[in-house]
């Protein structure tokens, strides 16, 4: 009973669900008092008092959300640019057209008079423009198509296990005419310019599943799904969720980043490669080509092969045998050394990246350098790798940087090497005084 009174007071004019088409005044009161946006935000305090039938419209939208994204997804497959964002972005856009007939507005102050007309106009214009834009550029709408999350891709296992209902849309009391209840988390999909909505973790998982279900037809490589998963997780990163589960996911994601190789289904013109950012400690080891040069002028750049360090071929067993490189290497490093003032052009294999089952990733560079690769703090903002072409006056966007990694020397190897070096130095010290006693 108290509930019903609360409901009447909260619902205000809408307590009569038949929708009184009265003057605007009762509606004004009703909307101010109800404020369902507050309710949705907290999540737990859903307005469930009114025992009327729950709105069916929500569920329809949900179901409708499922099929349309497949279409944009298919189109995005043909599209260009970074794969991740488009998948999710297309889906975000795919979800959007559905609400057009349903007059989705945030209830409350926006539900009033002219705003309705305004928002309906707003609906129609961007929606039609979205899909053509889909193939262009990197992802869109819902999230930065860059998989920027620290939590990275959730493990695919989890995705497959939970086959829960797509979106658990909470039941609301019947809204007023012209007042539509929008979950705060869906605000992002309302418009191109709509603000970002913080996603809850609970919703996250459901959205992941949604993506998975909707994306069965695409040549879904693990990478593609994972890309979409990454997009889901962007907002998780935004929410600064620092749970330990993040670390586990991160390790697995490192595996996914590097272990996934050679998807044959990628079209040639789609740049599906993801860009990663590595931070190395200074100074980055210098590498030189060992191939004898044909041009005599460039000998300053390269070491003659006779001057070979004993450790040169220490990892020959691990790495692939060097291909027949010969002249190209010499030619490239030679003349370029004179042209570039800063760095001689270097091009070649410098080591290998080893991925272990535990998720550890190590870089083994030549000369006994072993480095640990760990995921860095993933920023929530856009990062682009860009090539500046001053000669042609162009700025090429190579793409968005998906993930950042920090590379640090492996401590055991480093300490061991330091020890060896110290010993070598100690042994090199001449002991000319026979009276000296060597200690240690």
């Amino acid at each position, binding site marked *: 009973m108290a509930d019903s009174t609360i409901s009447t007071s909260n619902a205000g004019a809408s307590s009569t669900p038949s929708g009184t088409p009265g003057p605007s005044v009762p509606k004004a009161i009703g909307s101010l008092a109800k404020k369902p946006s507050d309710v949705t935000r907290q999540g737990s305090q859903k307005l469930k008092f009114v025992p009327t039938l729950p709105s069916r419209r929500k569920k329809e939208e949900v179901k409708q959300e499922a099929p349309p994204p497949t279409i944009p997804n298919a189109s995005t497959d043909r599209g260009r*640019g970074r794969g991740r964002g488009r998948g999710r972005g297309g889906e975000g856009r795919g979800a959007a057209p559905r609400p057009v007939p349903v007059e989705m507005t945030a209830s409350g102050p926006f539900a009033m008079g002219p705003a309705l007309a305004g928002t309906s106009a707003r609906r129609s214009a961007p929606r039609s423009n979205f899909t053509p834009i889909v193939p262009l550029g990197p992802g869109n709408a819902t999230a930065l198509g860059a998989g920027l999350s620290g939590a990275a891709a959730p493990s695919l296992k989890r995705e497959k296990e939970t086959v829960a209902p797509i979106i658990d849309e909470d039941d609301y009391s019947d809204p007023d005419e012209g007042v539509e209840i929008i979950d705060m988390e869906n605000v992002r999909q309302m418009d191109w310019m709509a603000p970002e909505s913080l996603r809850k973790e609970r919703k996250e998982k459901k959205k992941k599943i949604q993506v998975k279900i909707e994306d069965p037809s695409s040549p879904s490589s693990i990478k593609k799904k994972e890309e979409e998963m990454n997009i889901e997780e962007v907002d998780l990163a935004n929410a600064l969720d620092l749970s330990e589960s993040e670390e586990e996911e991160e390790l697995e994601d490192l595996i996914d980043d590097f272990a996934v190789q050679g998807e044959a289904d990628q079209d040639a013109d789609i740049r599906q490669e993801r860009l990663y950012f590595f931070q190395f*400690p200074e100074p980055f080891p210098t590498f030189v080509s060992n191939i004898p040069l044909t041009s005599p002028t460039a000998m300053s750049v390269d070491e003659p092969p006779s001057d070979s360090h004993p450790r040169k071929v220490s990892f020959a067993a691990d790495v692939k045998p060097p291909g027949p490189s010969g002249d190209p290497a010499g030619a490239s490093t030679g003349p370029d050394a004179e042209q570039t003032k800063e760095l001689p052009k270097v091009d070649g294999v410098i080591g290998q990246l080893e991925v272990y089952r535990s998720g550890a990733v190590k870089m083994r560079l030549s000369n006994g350098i072993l480095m640990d690769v760990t995921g860095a703090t993933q920023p929530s903002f856009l990062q682009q790798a860009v090539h500046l072409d001053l000669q042609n006056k162009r700025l090429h966007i190579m793409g968005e940087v998906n993930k950042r990694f920090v590379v640090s020397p492996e401590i055991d190897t480093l300490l061991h090497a330091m020890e060896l070096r110290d010993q070598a130095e100690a042994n090199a010290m001449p002991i000319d005084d026979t009276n000296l006693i060597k200690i240690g």
Partner: protein
Amino acid sequence: MDDDELISVLPIHYSNSLSPNLHIHQFPLLSRPLQTPPAAAVSGKRIRARIKPITRRLEIHVPVDPRPEVWNGERSKSLGAARQEDDCEKNQDTGKMKQMEGEEPRLIEVRMRSELIPQEGAYMLGVVRNGQLHLQPINETHQFRPTLTYLDVMSRKSRRSRGDAGSDEDSDDGPPPDPDEPPPVQTAAKKEKKPLEVKEVQVSARKVADDKGNLQGGLSAVRREMLLAIRAEEEEVWQDLDFCDGETAEGHEAFEAVFSQNEEHLECKSDITAFLKDIEGL
């Protein structure tokens, strides 16, 4: 770690073919990709860029979404006028406003200006292709933030019109007076003197023989240098750049250049101990 099974091995290729022109551009607080809003793309607006090569400053102009639901057209006119004025002052006119001579200038784009960020350590861009990791060194890191310098013009105008009473609008009275400088002379009557005063400080920095500069007690050397640098930067001419998205053929070429062509194993000249040894102060 012996029981840690090795899952896969990727050879690492390194190439610096794109040096010294490989940048990372960061857009703090921007969490969506840099794209022309569809409503603006329809009217033919595109993202543009320009650079001051010597000072290494970039600007990216992103068209705004001009739909009336999300954009205040009236305000854009007033801001546009302010921006045009600001452009003329600072020699940063895009030169594209000439088309709209008949109309009032509007704000049609967000200008993002770059700051060169010092790099900590060596940054590399890595791309995985065909089971190989290709690394390229990143030479510069830029952070882009929207420039709102036209707001200064507006606040100046409003300050002028309102006299010195201070404004209760969003504009503040500017930064507190610098202790090195004498307090600027305020005369409410002579409104045209105020903008002149704002510039006077800079003038005194440039012209060493200027009387006014000396009369005002002179600026500290550091401040003069800073002003010189600012002035030099403002006088440098912008060079327009083509903003190529990932789709163009040239973009393709640039992207392909990331990948190393060579299969040769390079010899490493440095030791792992160099990481520790080269730490300054250690």
